[in-house]
C-alpha cells in the first residue's frame, strides 16, 4: 500500500506519460492492436497504442478532442485509407492476420467490421434500400423474400421496425435524427458484421434518442463486439464494460469502466473525467 509520488514528467503535457496504465489485453480478444502508430503526412496522430477489443464487450474510447480516438477507431476497419497521407504502422490483428498487410482486401474487412458515424448519414434512398444495400452488394441473400426478411430483422434489432414498417419506401432522410442513426445502425448490422465501430454516434442526438441508442448498444452487445468513441463520459460510463482514455495520441489508461470512473489510476485520466482540463 505504498504510493509512488508522481514525477514531474508525468504532470507535464507533451512529454512521456509512461506506459499505458491498466490491462490492455482482453480475455477473448477479437481485434488485437499492438504498437499502432498513425501518421497524417509527417504528423504523428497516434503513438504506440496497444489495445485489445474483446468479444461481446463494449469498449468506450474517451479523451479530449484531437486525442486520436476517432483516428484509432477508424484504423480498425481501415476507413483511414480514404484520407490522403494517412499511414499506419504496427499490428492490428484480426483472425490471426494483420489487417494492414499487403493484399488484404478492405471490402471483406469492412463487411466484418461495420461502422456507424458521428452524423447520421443514411443514403438518400428509401428506408428499405438503405438496409438492403449491404446484403445486396455482398450477395448475402438469394431472393427478394430473404432480403425482406434481413431488412426486417435488422430494423427490429435496431429497434426501428415498429416505427418505420409502414413507411419502408419513404426516403431514409425523412426520419428524425435519432431514427436516422438507428437506421444507420440497422444498415450496419444488416451485413451481419462481427465488430461494430461507432464514432460518436449520439453527438447529434437529443437525450431521448441517445437513450434509445444506448439501450440498443446494450442489446447488440450480445451478438457483436462494439467499440464506441464518445465525448460524453457519462455515456461511456453507461454503455461500456471497458474504457480506454486517450490523450494527445497516446493510450493513457484502460480498464474496467467502473474502475476508470471511480478510481482512475492515471492523473491525466482523473483530470479528464472529473473535468479538470483547462
Amino acid at each position, binding site marked *: 500500500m505504498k504510493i509512488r509520488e508522481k514525477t514531474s514528467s508525468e504532470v507535464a503535457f507533451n512529454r512521456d506519460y509512461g506506459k499505458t496504465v491498466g490491462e490492455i489485453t482482453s480475455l477473448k480478444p477479437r481485434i488485437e492492436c499492438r504498437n499502432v502508430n498513425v501518421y497524417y503526412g509527417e504528423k504523428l496522430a497516434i503513438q504506440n497504442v496497444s489495445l485489445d477489443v474483446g468479444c461481446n464487450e463494449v469498449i468506450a474510447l474517451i479523451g479530449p478532442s484531437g486525442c486520436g480516438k476517432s483516428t484509432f477507431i477508424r484504423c480498425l*476497419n481501415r*476507413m483511414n485509407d*480514404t484520407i*490522403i497521407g494517412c499511414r499506419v504502422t504496427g499490428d492490428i490483428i484480426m483472425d490471426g492476420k494483420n489487417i494492414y498487410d499487403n493484399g488484404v482486401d*478492405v*471490402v*471483406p*474487412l*469492412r*463487411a466484418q467490421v*461495420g*461502422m*456507424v*458515424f458521428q*452524423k447520421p*448519414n*443514411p*443514403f*438518400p434512398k428509401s428506408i428499405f434500400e438503405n438496409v438492403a*444495400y*449491404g446484403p445486396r*452488394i*455482398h450477395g448475402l441473400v438469394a431472393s427478394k423474400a430473404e432480403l425482406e426478411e434481413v431488412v426486417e430483422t435488422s430494423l427490429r434489432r435496431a429497434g426501428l421496425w415498429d416505427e418505420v414498417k409502414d413507411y419502408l419506401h419513404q*426516403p431514409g*432522410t425523412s426520419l428524425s435524427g435519432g431514427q436516422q442513426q438507428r437506421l*444507420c445502425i440497422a*444498415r*450496419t448490422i*444488416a*451485413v451481419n458484421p462481427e465488430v461494430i465501430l461507432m464514432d460518436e454516434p449520439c453527438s447529434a442526438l437529443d437525450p431521448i434518442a441517445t437513450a434509445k441508442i444506448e439501450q440498443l448498444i446494450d442489446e447488440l452487445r450480445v451478438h457483436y463486439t462494439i467499440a464506441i468513441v464518445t465525448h460524453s463520459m457519462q455515456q461511456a460510463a453507461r454503455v461500456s464494460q471497458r474504457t480506454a482514455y486517450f490523450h494527445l495520441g497516446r493510450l493513457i489508461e484502460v480498464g474496467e469502466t467502473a474502475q476508470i470512473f471511480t478510481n482512475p489510476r492515471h492523473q491525466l485520466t482523473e483530470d479528464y473525467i472529473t473535468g479538470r482540463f483547462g
Partner: protein
Amino acid sequence: MNSLDSALSPPRTVDAVLASLPKRRRAEQRFRAYGLTSIVLGLCFLAILFGSIITKGYPAFRYTTIGLDINFDPQIVDPEGTRNPSIMAAADYDALLKASLSALFPDVKERTQKRALYGLLSSSASDTLRSVVLNKPDIIGKTERIWLPADDAIDMLAKGQFDSSTVESEGRLKSQLTWIEKLEADGRIKKAFNSTFFTKGDSREPESAGIWGAVVGSSFTLLVTLVLSLPIGIAAAIYLEEFAPQNRWTDFIEVNINNLAAVPSIVFGLLGLAIFINFFNLPRSSPLVGGLVLALMTLPVIIIAGRSALKSVPPSVREAALGVGASSMQTVFHHVLPLATPGMLTGAIIGMARALGESAPLLMIGMVAFIVDVPTSINQPATVLPVQIFLWADSPERAFVERTSAAILVLMAFLILMNGTAVYLRRRYERRW
C-alpha cells in the same frame, strides 16, 4: 453632479450603438439603392436588346403574298396532254405569271415598266406554281386564284419598312407602290405565315432564304459534340475526382484542364483546321469537324462542372457506403454518381448551349461557306445558326435585316430551351440530404 455621475457609471454600449445607428442605416440604404439601380439598369439593357431584336425580327415570320388568278393554259403547261411530271415540271410558268399580271394591269406597256410589274413577284413564284401543278394536275385548263410570294422589296414595302423618301428616290418602287395599292384594294395582298423561313436553306434571295439548313447543321454539330464530349468528359471527371491518385501528374492535368477552359474559342478553331482538316483530311465545313472542334472546347467545361458536382456530394455518403463494405466503384456508381448527376447534366447542358452559340471556331474550319442545301449527314457541308446570323448580317438586302433578327430569336429560343432543361433537370433530380 452630472459629470460625477457619468464618470462613475461606465459608458453603456447601447448609447454608442444608438449614436452610430443612423450612419449605419444610411450606409445600408445607400448600398441597397446601388444594388437596385444596377439591377434596373441591367433589366433596361436587356429590355432594349430584346425589344430591338423582337421588333426587328418579328415581321420576318410573316410574308406578303399576292393573289393572282392564274389560267393554267394546257398549251403552256402540258401541250401534249400526257400529264407527264417531267414535262409539266419543265413548263414555262413565268409565262403564266406574266399573262396574269398583264391581264390585271393592261395599261402597262413599256418594257422597263413591264419588268417592274413582273418584279412584283418573287423569282420563286414560278416554283410555287410548278408545285401546285405537280400536286394537282387536274388544275390544268382551269383558272384559279393562287397566292404567290411577293418580291422581298415588295414585302418590305407592304410591311411599311420603307419610308416615303426611299420610295420617292426610286422610280421603280414608286410605280410598284401604285400597283400594290390597287392589288390591295382588290384584296389580292395577304400576309401569310412565312413557312419558307423555317423550311428552306440559305438563299441569295431573302424571300426564299430559310434557317432550316442552319438548324439541321447546328443539330448535327451538337450531336457530334454531345456524343463525344459527354461520355469522355464525365468519365474523365469521375476518374480524376474519385479514383486518380493525388500526385504531380494529376495536379498537372487539373491545371491544364482549367487552362483549357479559359482558352479563347478561336484557338480551338485553328486547332481543328490544323488537325482535323489538314492532317486527317476530314471534309471541310462539315458538322463532323465542327462537332469535333466544339467537343474539344466543351470538354473542359464538362469536366470541371462534373468534378465540382462530384465534389459537392457530401463525404458522409461515401463514408456510409464504404462503411458497409462497398468497393470504391460501387460507392461511386451506386451513391455518388446519382447525387452528382443533376449537377453534371447541368454543366453539360450549359456547355452545349455555349457550343450552340459559338461561331468563331467554326469560321476557322470553313462553316462560313454559303450553303443552300439542307445537310442530310454529318459529312456534308453545312452551316450553323450563329454563322448563318453572321452571314445574313453581312448581306446588303434590306430584307435580310429582319431575317437576321428572326434567326437570332430562333437561336435564343433554343438557348433558353436548353438552359430551361438544365434548370428543370436540376430541380427534378436534385435530392436533399
